[in-house]
């Protein structure tokens, strides 16, 4: 992708949803940032090979997911271990207010990968559940159930924390 304007336009459109997606996958801010950068570089290096199939975001998410898996393998860690390692409260303390920090911490620590990713994508990108099911290649019913289950779980945790 040599066209800088086109790349800038793409970046502005997808940066937040892509980061939300990667954060949902790895549940780690720094790792998500690394994978985000690598994803853009991969897009630039392979954009000329892209065959339009009507779902460019699905391709971009595939690249991000593959990179995330590669990161896991290289660090010899599994996703659960990475979640336990992360100190979300410390990471976000300077950026977020108290309430938002609690929400984010519990989102990353207490929900599983599917629940996190679907909730983040839906909340941040505004994608419909049907679009998310296409991008993640999961049945719509699965996306809906994971989303609702994740939200319920999060509400319950936050209510308990508030009490």
């Amino acid at each position: 992708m040599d066209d800088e304007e086109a790349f800038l336009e793409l970046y502005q459109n997808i940066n937040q949803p892509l980061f939300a997606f990667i954060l949902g996958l790895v549940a780690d801010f720094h790792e998500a940032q690394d994978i985000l950068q690598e994803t853009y570089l991969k897009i630039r290096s392979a954009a000329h090979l892209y065959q339009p199939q009507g779902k460019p975001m699905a391709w971009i998410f595939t690249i991000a997911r593959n990179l995330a898996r590669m990161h896991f393998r290289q660090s010899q860690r599994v996703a659960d271990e990475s979640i336990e390692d992360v100190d979300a409260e410390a990471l976000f303390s300077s950026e977020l207010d108290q309430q938002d920090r609690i929400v984010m911490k519990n989102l990353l620590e207490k929900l599983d990968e599917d629940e996190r990713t679907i909730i983040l994508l839906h909340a941040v990108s505004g994608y419909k559940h049907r679009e998310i099911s296409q991008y993640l290649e999961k049945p719509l019913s699965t996306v809906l159930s994971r989303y609702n289950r994740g939200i319920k779980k999060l509400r319950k945790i936050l209510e308990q924390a508030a009490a």
Partner: protein
Amino acid sequence: MKKRQIIQSIQRNVDKLTPDVYQYVANAPVQKLPFHDAITAQPKQDQTDSKRKISPVLRLAPVFALLALVLFSFTMWKQLMTVTGVVGLDVNPSIQIDVNRFDRVIDVKPLNNDAIPIIHGIAYKQVKLEYVVRSLVGSMYYHGYLQDPESAILISVESRDAKKAAFLEKQVSIEISELVSLDVSQVYSQIIPIEQIDKRSEEYGVSFGVLNLARMAHEKYPEYSMEELFSLPVSVLYEIAHSEPGTYKPDLDTPEDCGGIDNPCKINLPLIMSPDGMEMPQATTTPTSPIYYDDDEWDDD
């Protein structure tokens, strides 16, 4: 915390935390790949296309299967419920049996008042014709019919399919001849071609078999009215209908207030002249006293 608040909190979080990496990723040197690697590989186009092509068909397959099942069920139901042959039994009670292409009985209709108690209590729906005929003949016996050695039974069959009609006629004739302790010559049968079916049987209040015989007799002996012919015993009517014109003396003298089981018509039958000059005996359909038969005799083995 409400769902909406949670969503808004997540939006704020991601909004604040999303790093701006544009300067780095836009300016970093990258080497263009000559072909996709494991990271950037796209799903193959043909796989996607085949999914798109096949999936609607697969999605519709259950619908087609259901439609086929419904169509098959409807066809079977129609075949089961379509009348392909009609069998009439006339003694004094007149009964009409409708059968389907599988020779199973769809309906049994009493054509006169005498037939109502005969068919009462007989289960006939989708039962084989032969079993229903056995039950009906048994019931007639039970009600006192077919006891007289001179009583007669008329079997009339009509069907659009001539082979089917012949088969039904033969089947019912054999069945009844085996069951009834009568001289076989007193079991009369006829196949009525579809084009000769007279739709006025209901109007006259007689079976289509009797109407057919009366019509045949009336053509040969116009001096007999149809009503007079209807009042004749089946055996006599059959003989008249199948006689050569002129072999009967038109001297019917039927009392006006007769009919039914209690008051059978005592008519002066025409003399039936056989080829050797012998007069045939007068027949009657008046039942004798009811004789209770052993139910087991009619059981289907």
